Every structure is written in structure tokens, then in C-alpha cells.
């Protein structure tokens, strides 16, 4: 029996709930037009005009996302090694510690260059 099929069943039920709720509120809920209600909310002042395709946000978040990818890939490499720890034995252990050291070098570099500073 394929263990992934029950997952599809749950996904179906979850999708029905997610769509159904929004659909139900769209049908049941009232509709009263008000120009101010449809403006972007900025505490009552005139909304800041945004560039087409999204506003601007600090570059630091982009840096966090890039660092995240490096570490997330590291984690993805760690998982299969952790599961087959006993099978890979000493070779796997030494190789993985070498890999972690290699990842730590750029981590320390980024730390020293102030990549994790927020001001």
C-alpha cells in the first residue's frame, strides 16, 4: 500500500475546508461600498504610493534569505547522514564533520563582516 495516498486524501479535505471557508464568507457576508474602506490602511493618512509589482523593503531581509538557503541545504545534507549514521560508520562521521567545518568558515566570515548585524 502506498503511504503517500492517504496524504492526498488529507490534502483534499484540507483544500475543501480552505476554499469552503472563504467561499462561504463571500456568499454570506454583507457588501457595503465605501471608498475609504478599499484604500490601503495607513492609520488614516493618505496611503504611500507603491511601485507596481510590490513595495520596497530593507536589503537585510534578502541577505537573511540567502544565508538561509546555505544553511537549509546543509540541514538537508545532515538528515540522510543522521538516519544512516550506523551504516556509514567512521567514514560518514569524518566526512560530515569535515563538511560542517567547511560550512562554518563562511558562517564565521559573514559574522565578522557584519552580515548578522541589524541596526
Amino acid at each position, binding site marked *: *500500500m*502506498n*503511504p*503517500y*495516498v*492517504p*496524504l*492526498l*486524501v*488529507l*490534502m483534499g*479535505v*484540507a*483544500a475543501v*475546508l*480552505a476554499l469552503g*471557508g*472563504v467561499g*462561504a*464568507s*463571500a456568499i*454570506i*457576508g*454583507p457588501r457595503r461600498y465605501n471608498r475609504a474602506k*478599499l*484604500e*490601503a*490602511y*495607513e*492609520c488614516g493618512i493618505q*496611503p*504611500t504610493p*507603491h511601485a507596481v509589482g*510590490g*513595495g520596497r*523593503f530593507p536589503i537585510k*531581509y534578502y541577505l*537573511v*534569505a540567502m544565508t*538561509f538557503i546555505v*544553511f*537549509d541545504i546543509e*540541514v538537508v545534507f*545532515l*538528515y540522510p547522514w*543522521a*538516519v544512516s*549514521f*550506523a551504516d556509514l*560508520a567512521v567514514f560518514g*562521521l569524518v566526512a*560530515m*564533520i569535515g563538511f*560542517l567545518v567547511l560550512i562554518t568558515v563562511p*558562517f564565521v566570515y559573514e*559574522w565578522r563582516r557584519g552580515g*548578522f*548585524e*541589524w*541596526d
Partner: protein
Amino acid sequence: MSLVALATQHLTGLHLVAATSPSGAQAGVAADFSHDNFWIWLLKAVVIVIFMLTSVLIAIWFERRVVGRMQLRPGPNVHGPFGLLQSLADAMKLLLKEDVTVKAADKIVYIVAPMIAVFCSLLTFAVIPFGPSVHLFGIVTPLQLTDFPVAVLYILAAASVGVYGIVLGGWSSNSTYPLLGSVRSTAQVISYELSMSLSLVSVFVLAGSMSTSQIVSSQRSLWWALPLLPAFVIYVISMVGETNRLPFDLPEAEGELVGGYATEYSSMKFAWFFLAEYINMINVSAVATTLFLGGWRAPWPISAINDGMFNTGWWPVLWFLVKLWALIFFFVWLRGTLLRLRYDQFMKFGWKLLIPVSLGWVVCVAAVQGVRQFSSLTLQTILVALGVVVIVAVAVSYLIPEKTEPRTTGKVAPPGVFDAFADGYPVPPLPGQTLPPSPRRARAAAAVASVTDTGTEAQEVQRG
């Protein structure tokens, strides 16, 4: 039904599944799902969704009630017994409210984002075991929807995709506060997801599996929270950061960002974000229970009664729920006790403390396990050797010079008199500059001096 059959063929065609073992149970998985059929799956899936919705309603009530007690007030107590129906009333009210779609919004993404959030949050419980096998309508089936050798990886994947709900919701609103709230939230969730997933590695090393039922059965004699206490602590901290809860609820810092990524949402779409947040709280608690606290296994004195009677049948559901709600109480307790962190403190804590510590812990566990499994040394020798290493490290740390004063970087104060209003609006002084005495203070001092002067003069006049 035909769709399911098609999907089955498709998945088996792709060889996504490991070969089944002769007993009918899947290789690498402790639970035996071989007797399940479509109706059992559908039943379990519906029960999971209903369980999540009810748990969230109770959790919201529980949180408000407990926080109320912690702040010496009663909390919700009007609707239903003990105010239990309060959250149901709130949900119904949200359903009956107007569904506003703001003018500037990217319509399709704006509508889909809350659905993504709630959809992904509902998926986690597919692989969480509530208990061992029971008899259900004449079929022996585990109290778990499904399990596969990469179950925990699947949990993390579902949680990661759930972040799209937040980031798209904030972006598509095309408004300042939601955008800032969503990038903040995303940065926070992905930062703490790293330390969270790193803390799980040591569990996999000890359990030798990523299947949830296998991990629960590997905790027969010892819950992993005890030998892997540092990993458990890291997991608990990062699960609070991951779910955007106090003291890490920066995406919704009301004083700064109004409502965070959900500012422009109303009615059921807002409710879905709210629901997803609470379901995620239950999800991470359930993962902590399964991976670190023995899953559905009874706590020690009870597990020894009557040859493990309380670890069979429907009893385990009780232990699972007790552990789950203990963790949810912990969340509420944190909220009632701690203050919100500043964003830079929060990111610093995540990147500079949690991640290095969890990486170091992975290396420690791997080294100790490696020496235990691949060499003839005993545990005692290893512990003595570790003690020596720690003592040497402490001794070396005394030789490292004390941290010097941080360099003062940035702008240097220009010479001359400091004028706070030079640029047209007031600015604070730079280091090394002093503010000129405020005119108001000078006037006040003059007034005081004149009063005392006239006072003494009057006294003199009187005397004279």
C-alpha cells in the same frame, strides 16, 4: 476514487516508495498500515481536520482564560459554560463579516494566500501518531493517518511551504505595513527554522530513523528529551520563534506594524491566518511531543503499571493529549510572563547563539555516538574524556584576553556649536557633542531666581 487509484499508480510508477517488507508493514516504519482502505483514510483525515479546528477553538479559549487568570481577571466567562463557546462565537462573527478586498491588492494572490497558510498548517498532523494500533470497525489500524521513512522531513516541508501564505499575503496587499510585517515574519520563520531543524538531527542520530512511528517506538525506555536536553531546549525556543508567538511575535508587533501581514485582511481570510497561526502552535507542540517527549507513550510510573497496560488500546491518546496541552500551556505561560524582544535582539539571538550552539551540539552527539558505536570505549571513559576536554576548554578560555571596548564607528562630531535644528527638523546630538542649554530651562531658572530675589527683597522691606 478513480483519482486516488490514478495517483497510486502514478506514485508507484515513480518509485517514490521503498519496497514493502514481508510482514506487510513498510520498511523503516514501525506502524503497520497494511489493513487500511480508502474509507479509513477518509475517516482519519476528517477526524484530523475536526480535531485541529476544535483544538484551536479550545486553545484560544484556554489562552485567554489562563492569561486572564495570570493577570488577575476572569477572562471570557459569558458564552457557554466557563465561556467555552466564546471562540466559536468569535469565529461565527468573522464568518458573517464583510469580505473586503482592498483596491490596490493583487487579487488572485491576495485571495489564495490565506488558503495556502491554512492548507499547509493542516498537513502536519498526517504523520503524527496519536497511539498504537487499535480495532476500528473490525480493522486493526494505527492511530495515525500515514507514515513514511521521511515523515519528519515532510513535516518541515509543509511548514516551509506555509511561509508562502505569509509572504504572499503581505506582498499582495500592496500596502506598507503588511509588506514590512510579512518580510519580518518570513525572515524570522526561516531563521528559527534552521535551528529547529538542526536540533532534530541529534534525534535522528539516536533513533536511526525519520519516521515518526519509528521514533516513538525508539523511545520505549528513555524519552529523547532527557539525553538530548540541549537539543530539546533549542527546539522549544525555536518553535516559539517559528510560530510567531510572544516573546517573538514581532510580525504583529501592534505598536509598530498595526496587524502585521494580516492588516489588510478581513472576515474569513483573516480568520484563516489566525487559524493557521494557532494550528502551527499545535503542530510544533505535537512534533515536540513525538520526537522528544515519547509521543503517545505513558510517563514512567504509569507505563510500568500492569505490564504496560496503559501503552495499549486507546489510553495512549490520553497521554499524547496531556503532553500536547502541557506544551500549549507553556506557550500561554510565556505569553503571560515575557515581554516582546526587539527585532535586532531577536535576529542576533537566532543567528549568533541558537544556530552555532545547535551545530556544536550536532557535532558533540555525533562524536559521542561515533565513539560509542565504532570503538571499544565504554560510556564511562567517554564521559571522563569529555569532562577533561571541558576543563581544558575552561582553562584556555581564561587565557583569552577580555573583550575590549567596541570601536566607535560612524560619523565624527563636527567642531563648533551644535545646532539641533540645522537640517530643519530636530536631530539628536552625535557622540562628543553636547546640547546647548534649552531656552525653556534658562527662562525657568531666571523665573526662579527673580522669585527668590523679590522674596528676599520683600522680607528686607518688611524688616526695614
